[in-house]
C-alpha cells in the first residue's frame, strides 16, 4: 500500500481542487501520503507526481526539502525535543541526554520496538513553556525527566491518546459546493466586482 488508496485519492482530489494551480497541493498531498503509510514512499511520490502533473524528481526535490516529510519508516511516535534557545536555557540538553539514556537511541534513532523515534529539533514555538517537546506534533510543556518517562510509558502502552505518526490535524477543511467561491486562477478574471463599490452605496452587506 504505497500509492494513495481509493479513500485518500478522493481526499487528494478535494485538496487539489482548492488551488488554482495543482502543483500548489504538493505539500498537503505529501502529508496525506505520510498519514497513510507513516512515511512518504517512493510510489506515493510517483503517484502524487501524476496527480499534479510534474516529474517524480520534482516531487522528490520538494519532499526532501522539508524535515517533517520522512522518506524512510520511522517509529509510531516522533518524539521531538525542542533544542531551541529558550528551551536550551532551561535544560533541554539534559532532557535530551535523559531521553537518549532511557530510550537507548541518539537523536534520529528509533527504538528497537519501532515505537519511538527521538529527535532534537529547533524551536517549536512554545518558548515560554520550556523545556518542551512534541509527540507527533502534539505539545508537552515544561517537561521534567519524570514527565518524560511517564510519557514514554504511555506511548508504549498506547494510552497517550496520540494518533500514529503522519496524522496531523484531526479536522480537515471542507468547502461545500454551495459555499465555494471558486479558485482564482492566475490567468483569470479582471477586477473583482466589489471593488466597484463606493462610499454612498452602503452595500449589499446584510
Amino acid at each position: 500500500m504505497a500509492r494513495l488508496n481509493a479513500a485518500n485519492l478522493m481526499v487528494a482530489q478535494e485538496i487539489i481542487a482548492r488551488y488554482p494551480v495543482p502543483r500548489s497541493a504538493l505539500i498537503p498531498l505529501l502529508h496525506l501520503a505520510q498519514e497513510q503509510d507513516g512515511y512518504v514512499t517512493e510510489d506515493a511520490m510517483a503517484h502524487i507526481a501524476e496527480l499534479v502533473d510534474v516529474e517524480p524528481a520534482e516531487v522528490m526535490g520538494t519532499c526532501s526539502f522539508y524535515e517533517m516529510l520522512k522518506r524512510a519508516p520511522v517509529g509510531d511516535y516522533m518524539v521531538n525535543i525542542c533544542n531551541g534557545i529558550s528551551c536550551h536555557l532551561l535544560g533541554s540538553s539534559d532532557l535530551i541526554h535523559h531521553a537518549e539514556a532511557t530510550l537507548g537511541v541518539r537523536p534520529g534513532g528509533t527504538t528497537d520496538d519501532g515505537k519511538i523515534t527521538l529527535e532534537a529539533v529547533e524551536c517549536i514555538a512554545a518558548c515560554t513553556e520550556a523545556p518542551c517537546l512534541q509527540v507527533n506534533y502534539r505539545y508537552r510543556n515544561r517537561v521534567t525527566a519524570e514527565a518524560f518517562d511517564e510519557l514514554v510509558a504511555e506511548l508504549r502502552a498506547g494510552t497517550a491518546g496520540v494518533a500514529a505518526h503522519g496524522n496531523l490535524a484531526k479536522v480537515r477543511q471542507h468547502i461545500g459546493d454551495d459555499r465555494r467561491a471558486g479558485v482564482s486562477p492566475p490567468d483569470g478574471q479582471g477586477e473583482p466586482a466589489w471593488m466597484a463599490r463606493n462610499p454612498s452605496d452602503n452595500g449589499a452587506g446584510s
Partner: protein
Amino acid sequence: MSEQETVVNITVNGQPVEAAPGEWVIAAAERAGVYIPHFCYHPRMNSVGMCRMCIVDIDTGRGPALQPSCMVAVSEGMVVDTTSEQTRKAQDGVLEFLLLNHPLDCPVCDKGGECPLQDQTMAYGPGESRFIEEKRHFEKPIPVNDLVYLDRERCILCDRCTRFADEVAGDPLITFQDRGDQTQVNTFPDLPFSSYFSGNTVQICPVGALTAVPYRFKARPWDLTEVESTFPNPMGDRVVVQASRDQVLRYQGVDSDAVNWGWLTDKDRFSFEAVASELRLRAPLVRGTALGRPDPAGSELVETSWGQALRQAADAIRAAVADKGPQSVAVLGGARLTNEDQYAWARLAKGVIGTDHVDAQLDDGLPADAVLGLPRATVNRACTPGGTVILLAPDPKEEQGTLYLRLRDAIVNRGVQLIELTPRASGLSHLAAFRLHHRPGEAAAVAAALMGGDIEPGPDGDIGGVPADDVAATAAAIANRADKPITVIVGRPSLAESADFTVEAVAELNRFANLLSAGGRPGIAFLPALHRGNVLGALDMGLAPGLLPGRITLADGGPALAETWGSVPSAPGADARGILQAAADGQIDVLILLGADPLGDFPHRELAEAALENAGTIIATDLVLNPSSARAHVVFPAAGFAERGGTHTNLEGRVTCQRQIVTPPGTARADWAIAAELARQLGADFGFGSPEEVWDEITRVAPSHRGLSREAIDASDDGVVVAQSSVAFTASGDTSSVPPIDAYSLRLTSARRMYDRGTLVQHVPSLAGLAPTAVLAVNPYDFDRVGVDSGADVQVISNVGEMAMPVVADPGVPRGTAAFGYNYPDLDVRALVDPEAVVTDLRIQTR
C-alpha cells in the same frame, strides 16, 4: 543586444560603457572586456544568483554596495567597480566557501585545465585552507544516465544543470534534493536523466561534477587541439571539434546567436565516436575473389588501388554512356556531403556524364520547388516574440533537436504561439496553443480552412479529423497575430503517406501569402525541416532532377552554365523513385550511390532491392559499408566530418564553414576530389585543388551564391544566409483525395525517432543502447476496438504485409490513427506501407 535602439550609459571600472536596457551588469561588463567571475550565471538561462561569486560594487546613487552583477540590470548613470577592496574581499570569501567542501582532486578530474573553479582559485583564491573540519561526503560518481556521470562532492550547486534540464530542455529529471549544506543534485531513484540533451549539462557544468562517459579520462584539455566548425545536421549547429593525436575526442556546442545557442543533442555530441569507427573504409574496394584478388565476377569486395578503382568506375560509366546514353547513368544520395562535394558530383553527373537522373533525397523529403520556391524563414524569424509557428513537420524534438530547444524557448519565454498541424502529438504539444491532429493525409483540408477557405465539415463536425471549432479558433488566433511573423516549419510528418499531401498543405498555407504580407506585415515564410545532414546544400548545389547549382532550373540556368560546364542535360531526369524504377527495369547501367543506402532508407524496400539487383554497375562512396554499398562493384572510401574542409548549408539557407582537424583513415579522400578524379578519367579537368577552389567556382556559376566569398562566410560567426532563388513553387492547386477509412482499420503514421537503428547511431557505442524498442502507439479510446491491453503483442495487417509487434496506449495519437517509428530494421515498418497507395490502413489482430 546591438539591435537595441536605446542605450543605457554606465561606468565600469572608470570606463564608460553603453549597455542595452534590461541587460545584466555582468553581461554589459563582459562586452566591455571586464570579466566578472561567476559560476551560476549563464547567458542562455535565467539568473538564479546562487553562487554569489559575481558580487561587485554597484553604485546607483546611494553609494557603492555589494550586489550580484548577474541579477542587477543596468540603469542610467550606474557606477560599477569590480576591483574595489570590498569586492575583492567578498569574492575571495565566496571562493573560499566554495572550496571548503570541494575535494580538490583536480589531477584526476576531467575538467582539470578548463575548470572555472580551478581558474578562479589560481587567479584569486586563498592559499592555505582555513577549513580544518571534515569535508562533506557523497558516494563517488553516480551515473545519472547512460552518458553522464555525477560527482556530488565536486558539485558547487550552481543550478546550471538542473536549470538546463527544467528551463531549456523541459526534462526536469534531475533536481536539487535535501537542504542547506546537504543539498545535492540527483534523479528520482531508478528514473534516469533520460533527456536527448543531457550532454549539454556536462558542457555547462562549471566544475568537474558532470562528466561524459564517452570522454571520461580520454584526454587532458592541454593535449587538445580544436577548430570551430559546423555539425553536419540540418540545423547546422555550430561546434568546436577537439582532437588529440589525430583523433576526434569531443564536440562542444558554440553559442551561435542565430542557430544553436551552444546546445547540441546527445546524438550529435557523442557521434564523434563514429569518426574513429574501426569499420571505416581505408582503401578503395572492387569485386574480387575470396583470396583478395580483384576479379569483376568475384563475390567479395577486396581492397585495391585508387588507380584501379577509378579506372573500373570510369570504364563502366563510359561504356554505359556509349551503349545506352547518359540517361543510363544515375546518381543517388549526397545529402550528407559538403556543398563543395555536392557541387563536384553535380558537375560530374550533369556536366560531364550528361545525366539528370540525380537525387539527393530518397523519396523521404520534399520536392525541390517546395523548398527553394517558397519564402524562406530563419530560425530567429520563427522565434520572433509574439509570432506564430505552424508545425507541418515531424516532431522537432525527435528530428531537429536544437531547433526544438529554440522553439521551446520562443514559446515559453517569448510568447510565440505554436500551432500543431500534424498527424500526432509532438514533443512541443503541451506548449502548443492549438493542437490540430489531423487524420493521416488530410493536412491540406485543415490548412485550407485555417487560411479562410470554407471547407465543408465532415459527418461528425470535423475537418480532416480535427473538430471544426478548433480549426476556426486557430484561424482566428492566426489572424489576431498577423502583424507578427508567421512561420511554417515544413517537413515530412509521416513517411507512410504521400509527400503530395504535405505539398498541398503548403500550397494552401501559401495561397494567401501576399494577403498576409499586405500593408508591410511580415507575412508567412517557410522553414524546411528535412532529414539529412546537408540536404539543403544538396538542393542548392543541384543534386536533384531538373535543378542546377544556384537554385535555378535546368531550363532557366542551362545555357549560362553550359559555358563553364561545356554541356548540361537536355531534359529533366527522374527522382529517386523514378531512378530505382528504371534500374529495376534494367535501364540503369551505372548507379552511383553517394553515401546512400536505398535498401535501408528508401520507403519502398522491394523496389530498392530490385533496383540494386538489376542495375549494371554500382559505384559507391561512403565512410563505412552499408547494406547497399556492400552490393557495389566499386567502393571509394570517403573522408567524413572533421576530416575535410568545406561549407555547409542549413535549413535556413545559412552557409557556414566546416574545417578539417584530423586526417582521413587510410587513403580515404573528400568526395569533391573523388568526383574530380573520375571526371579526369572521363576526360574533363575541373581544376580543383582544394575545397576553396571548388567554392570559388560555385560563387561564379551558381546564381544564388554569386559573389559569396569564403572570406565573407568566415568573417561572420553565424555564416551567411543565402536568400535569393529563381526556382518557383509549382504545386498543382488541386488536392488529391484520400480514400475513406473503414471502421475496423487504423490509419498509419510513421516518423523517425531521435535514437533509431540507423547507421549513425549504430556506429556510436554510447548511443546504440538508447534506441527504444519499436511499438505501435494507439489512442487509449481505440483499445476497446483493438480488444487487447496496452503492451500486448498483436498482429498488424496491411494490404501489402503483416507483422507482429507490441501495441501501447498513447493519448498523443488521435483516435483512428496508429503511429509506428520509422527506421527499425528489426521491425521494418516499410513491410506494411503500400508504395502505390497514398495512405496505409492497418488492421490489428490479437494473437
